[in-house]
């Protein structure tokens, strides 16, 4: 039992989710939205606090028969994950934006536009299951981040994916689009899981163990068959790159991002990416660290494709939400740029210097803040009640609502990597990691891709301020939750841009994986 204590925050979230499910039956329907959202917030805050205390105290241990590595990167990623989860929850729970209605469907089982649905709306029903689903998803992500063996990793992957498939289908408006998105996500997700599973079977065949460190020692000792290893490595990475949204495994991203309820899109955009990125780091650095020379070029090529495809296709978009999907693909590429360098203490990084792990974690922090802020604003722009994210609907938004316009501009500038925002420092960090790993050419390509993405971010800024305001569009008043997300985004973006030192220091102290 004692071996599970270091993983306590994970179980806090998990048990919180189970109690949330139980409350669905126990709490009267009228009170459910309030109680569920507060309960979820409480659970996340408790887990966040527990993690912070542990992190502050601990040296890091292997927990649950070495299946979970509770180490620096785990704690850092958990804190970020729970923080962004909490912000997402604020968007989940904001009823004001929808004119008193939840952003989620009244009754998921009712056929769209049927009498049953109209009755459900009239009865002010709502699917409060989204809150426990959020917690289940967070549970999966947390254990994925900490997973120290391939089986745990696979199970975690499934735990965090299934709630997302359901959440994606629950949009209140444009339900068919949402259901289509969910189905697409599910089918492609299932395929990628299958590939991951196949890959881990091959890796097991290679090393005779599921543990990452055993795979590592098999590689170092030179036993086992190399084709098995290479095939396994490729298939496993495909599974994770799919979740990360890297090209050529990105096809689901635009449709799923557009179709899902906007708060869910925001949650997926940062939390899924965070979990996938840290999982990828752990597999590549811990299990396959000795194979560095083989996978670096492969990941670099993926990074190039991802950045350029995300950027170039993004240039052609005329819908803000879809554009953000391509933006998130491009950012997956920048994250991979940091991964490629593999500058760690093991590869000869001097003590105290910022390496790949810290730079990727910093990038995720600096990317998450403006991303959630952007999706918070996307939910506000509406045409006859439904969200409207076309450029025509967004025209002149900044002139009608200067505060929201300026906020959106700050988020876009940060994602474009402009100065005084976290985005620039984050880019410098991942580029420096790649450079120090002798991937100078990748930095050059990444800079070209930055320019391309800046092209579409500044096009949105032009739409916000340069064009005449659109008459048919209403910009609804944000509720307190949405405001909190927007202001956290603004302040966080500036803090990370102007004095990134403290966060860098903290992340850098937590950058070594336990084996």
């Amino acid at each position, binding site marked *: 039992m004692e071996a599970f204590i270091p993983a306590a925050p994970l179980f806090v979230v998990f048990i919180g989710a189970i109690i949330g499910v139980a409350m669905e039956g126990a709490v009267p329907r009228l009170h459910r939205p309030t109680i569920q959202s507060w309960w979820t917030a409480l659970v996340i805050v408790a887990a966040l606090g527990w993690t912070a205390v542990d992190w502050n105290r601990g040296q890091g241990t292997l927990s649950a028969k070495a299946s979970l590595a509770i180490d620096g990167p785990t704690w850092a990623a958990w804190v970020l994950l729970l923080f962004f989860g909490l912000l997402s929850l604020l968007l989940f729970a904001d009823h004001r934006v929808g004119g008193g209605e939840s952003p989620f469907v009244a009754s998921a089982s009712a056929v769209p536009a049927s009498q049953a649905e109209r009755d459900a709306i009239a009865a002010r029903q709502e699917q409060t299951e989204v809150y426990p689903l959020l917690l289940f998803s967070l549970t999966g992500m947390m254990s994925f981040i900490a997973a120290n063996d391939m089986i745990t990793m696979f199970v975690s992957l499934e735990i965090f994916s299934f709630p997302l498939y359901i959440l994606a289908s629950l949009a209140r408006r444009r339900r068919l689009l949402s259901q289509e998105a969910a189905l697409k996500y599910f089918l492609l997700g299932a395929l990628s899981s299958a590939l991951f599973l196949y890959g881990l079977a091959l890796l097991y065949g290679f090393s005779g163990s599921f543990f990452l460190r055993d795979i590592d020692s098999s590689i170092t000792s030179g036993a086992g068959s190399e084709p098995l290893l290479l095939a396994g490595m490729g298939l496993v990475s495909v599974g994770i790159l799919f979740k990360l949204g890297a090209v050529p495994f990105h096809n689901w991203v635009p449709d799923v991002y557009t179709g899902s309820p906007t708060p869910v899109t925001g949650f997926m955009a940062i939390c899924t990416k965070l979990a996938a990125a840290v999982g990828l780091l752990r597999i590549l650095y811990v299990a396959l660290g000795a194979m560095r020379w083989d996978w670096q070029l492969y990941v670099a090529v993926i990074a190039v494709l991802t950045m350029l495809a995300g950027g170039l296709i993004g240039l052609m978009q005329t819908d803000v939400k879809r554009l953000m999907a391509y933006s998130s693909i491009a950012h997956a590429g920048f994250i991979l740029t940091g991964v490629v360098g593999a500058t760690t203490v093991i590869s000869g990084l001097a003590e105290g210097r*910022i390496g790949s792990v810290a730079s990727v974690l910093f990038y995720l922090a600096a990317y998450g803040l403006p991303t959630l802020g952007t999706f918070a604003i996307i939910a506000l722009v509406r045409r006859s009640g439904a969200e409207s994210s076309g450029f025509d609907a967004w025209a002149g938004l900044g002139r009608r609502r200067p505060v929201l316009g300026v906020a959106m501009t700050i988020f876009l500038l940060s994602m474009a990597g402009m100065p005084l925002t976290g985005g620039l420092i984050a880019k410098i960090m991942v580029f*420096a990691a790649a450079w120090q790993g002798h991937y100078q050419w990748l930095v050059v390509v990444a800079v070209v891709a930055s320019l391309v993405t800046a092209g579409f971010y500044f096009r949105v800024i032009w739409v916000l301020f340069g064009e005449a305001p659109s008459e048919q569009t209403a910009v609804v008043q944000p509720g307190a939750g949405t405001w909190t997300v927007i202001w956290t985004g603004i302040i966080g973006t500036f803090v990370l841009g102007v004095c990134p030192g403290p966060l*860098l220091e903290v992340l850098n102290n937590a950058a070594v994986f336990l084996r």
Partner: protein
Amino acid sequence: MENIPMLTILGLLPLVGALVAFGVKGRAGRNVAFGFSLLTFAVGFAVFHMSLHSDLAQTVDWIPQIGAHYALSVDGMARAMVLLTVILTPLVLAFEWNNDTPHLAAHKTPRWDVNVFGALALLVEGFALFVFMSADVLLFYLFFEGSLIPLFLMIVGWGGEKRRGAALKFLLFSLAGGLVMLVALIGVYAATSAAGNPTFLVSEIAAIEIDPRLARWLFAGFFFAFAVKAPMVPVHTWLPDTAEQATPGTSTMLVGVLDKIGTFGMIKFCLGLFGEASQWASQLVIIVAVVSIFYGAFMAITSKNLLRLVAYTSVSHFGFMVLGIFAFTITSIAGSIFYMLAHGFSSAAMFFVVGFLVNRRGSAEISDFGGVQRLAPVLAGTFLVSGLATLGLPGTANFAGEFSIMVGAFRVIPVMVFVSVIATVLAGLYVLWAYQRVFTGEPTEEVREKITDDLGGRERAIIGVLIFLLLFFGFIPRFGASVSEKTATATMSQLGIDDPVNGSIGGK
């Protein structure tokens, strides 16, 4: 006085002013912005004087993990640029005093509030001041790139009908330059990391031996960014488009202040950090500079639009500055720095007089004018004086700069200098021919209808200040040369080149 962070105050003052001006709506906000620009001028002038006698530099750790510092200092060249910036900004705000009135319409497009213009101009000023004062490469980069954003918004908010394309072109060109520099910046970080401690501090980077092959690449990265900024052929194409679409006030902030960062950076970073690489590249750079000189002059002659004409003259003049810098003599580098100051004033004067014309006529096409001299003699006179200053007539500041570049460079690259002297003749052509077509002859009906008044009091005051400055620095060049020579000497000693010319601006 030693403990007061004067440089920080100087840089922050306009930024604070910008925030206030954003908040105060309408013309009251404009007045606030103007007030802050005057206050900044006072502080800037004080800094200009104090830095002569005492060292105002300050250095604080900023991001210790990567060796970035919040480090400010002013040397001779930075002093000149600070002076230029704090003088031009209030003039620009005074020029755009009524830019919310609809009759100022080459611009039929909707415009934003006038207080926002003031705020954005102050942002540009504050960022530019920080750029000139930075003693840390990352800090420099931060404000260098940051200044693009307010300027982009100034083009979007007050530009002509094709402002979208112009704004995006400006932004993407500048950003391309900036991002290439970012690569070089990361290279510097990696190189200093490898040499011991990572640092971005200019003085520490200069002390480190960087592998010559890498240094050349890094030099190229920095130089590309500065060549885009100080528009050199062939990466200049954004400037004429931008100048045509933006208001003259915006263009003055851009050409008068921000573009100087290009030549400023070449001296401070290209020569200062990568001396060997600079010499290695100098021949190519000089050829490109001469091409810029001629291309700019020819394009100015053939321009049908006054704003484009002024933009192209700047391309030509920046060519002279770059020529002076890469000739590697004290006299020519000092001349370039002096010319940067002079060109700031002369280009502002040209943009303003053209702006006066455009505001009246509602068009900048040369063919829309003719015979204006009869209707507005003072306007015509100021155009002529500004134009003559631009072409470098003896007695104006530009002459002192140009002459010093030529004298300095002649010993080193006589052929190139000889060739570029021809361009000064072309300068006479584009200025005087434009004057002839716009001001002489019989005014047409339409011109009579539109141009009804001569320069008003505000307009006379603005252009008067600039003409005074041009003549002042023209007749007493020692005043500015004392500033520029210090930097030139320091740069040369860092390069480790013996000066082939003995002489200075005053000693001709």
